[in-house]
């Protein structure tokens, strides 16, 4: 019983602590700042460096079936 109470107490303090930390992140817009100064530039660099297919190499053809429904 005592062990359960102790666990609940620890859980309560952990949850309260987490809640307070999240509120600080929210209030000071720390999520926005991390994304703006860290994540977005990193991802943007990654996308800029990605190898992509050259669309102009694809031949433009109209040999696919003729979809006409005039019956």
């Amino acid at each position, binding site marked *: 019983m005592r062990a359960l109470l102790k666990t609940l107490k620890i859980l309560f303090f952990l949850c309260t602590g987490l809640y307070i930390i*999240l*509120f600080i992140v*929210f*209030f*000071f*817009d720390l*999520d*926005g*700042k991390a*994304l*703006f100064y860290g*994540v*977005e530039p990193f*991802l*943007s660099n*990654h*996308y800029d460096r990605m190898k*992509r*297919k050259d*669309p*102009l190499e*694809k031949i*433009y*053809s109209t040999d*696919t*079936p003729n*979809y006409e*429904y005039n019956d």
Partner: protein
Amino acid sequence: MSEKKSYTRQDVMNKVKSLASDFWNGKPHEERRLGDLYVDKTGLYKHREWRGFKDTMYYFNMIWLYNYGHMISDIMKYGGGLKGPILFARGVWRYRWLGQSYLPVMHWFDRGLEGMRGEGLKASAWHYRAMVSETIRQFMRMLQADQNLGGDPEIWKKTLAHDETVWGGIFYPWRDRMDDVPLQMIPYFVTCHVNNHVVLNYIDAAQSIGLPGDPCPMCQAEAGIFILDDVPDYFPAVVTSNEACDGSVGTSVLQDWMMNKPLFAMPQPMQFDDPLVQEHCAREIEECWKFIEEQTGEKFNCEELVKHLERQNELQRFEWEKWEVAANTDYYPINGVSQALYRIYQSQDGDRDIWHETDARVKKILEKCVENKINSYPLTRHRVIAWSCAPLYYSHWCTWAYNCWGLNCIINMDSLMFDMTIRTDSYENMLQDMALYHEWAPMRRMAVGGMHHIFELWEYMERFHCDMVMMYDQLQCKGMQGVHGLFEDEFRARNIHAIWMPHALPDKRTVSRSEIRSIVNDYMTTIMHEEPLDPTLLEFDDSEGW
């Protein structure tokens, strides 16, 4: 000496009372100084606004935490459980539009909901939540089927793609077995609102292969996504349209080239009032259904179609209730940007569970506001109707305009496009109404649908009791540029206050947000001779912001 001491004590008491009131209720509108909260250039906040204890805690718990939580749970819900987050991470790594626009979603909420309190804050936030959830549903379906990421070929076979301006209702007959996901709704439309940096890559890509820079930037961007090979391969066949104009036809040609898949072109007629055109359009819908049957081997299910149309009619009936409250009372709780984005998204997307869930929540708030006479915008000086197509990178201008000037955007053109329910009493009536709905597409119903349709503005101004027009001026839309002078004449003749808001749809480089604010500021000071409610919002630099 004792007098001085007593004065100081009183002063301290007043200060304490004022601080306590600010803590509990938030500052009164005119004392908020929202512009002081911004970090220069970035649009970030030094700290988020303290809206009073109740509203700040609501924002933190029910908007910020709730939505971050649901952004994860929705990925699992629509991505097949625990596989969802892994698939999502792979999608983020592969597609720019996903990675760069998904993550700053909560800032999109912040921009649209700035300064809001009470029921208005709640109702508007639920609209945003619905759009995020539906967006996640769509891109998770794309990723599950995506052959670029080794997606499930069975899901690929059962997913159809269509132009974002083809109404989702066309695919209702197969919703029990298959799904349909618009090609550009998320990669283009949603990203412009959430993070306006992303679309610039696609516009530049279109011009990098030698295409001219003067067509509609929407068409350029939608082509650019394909040119940059940034489209998931999630579908065996596609339905395109000519919407909004011939620029879009050009986009479809490029897309056809790069997709190289069976394609059914279903153009919406420009002059849709002609009864012969109605017949033609109804027949084209039937042809499209045949195309889908042929491509997928799945038969048309009329019962499924009727079921979804009736559910869609429910959504429309609630929208009419909302319009009624917005038009005739001061108790409409939904702000301009939430009204505009939710309505265009929902009416184009068609029947989905999330819209019904959201409408049920908003209905309760709406009824509470009307019964208790709650005015969510008490400092409204002008009731504004916004007309023509909005700047996607600054759709939240209405939030700024209310906070700064008391301009309350009651309704906008795109909300009013689909002003109809669809009859389901007979196949013929249903088909005729579906054709009309299909024709009344975004940017078509009013903007390029004929002179008397674009001039429906005057009727709607009266119906919604608006005394001012925010007239969007899409600089690269040749159709709307053609009627610019006619509108000027009408505004003068009718003695209507109208502010022209120039923009280039998704491209913030042509007319920046700051320039837009400056135009509104000039009008409000020089023509209206009014003072700002919050002077810190007059000028600020958010040029690098999302």
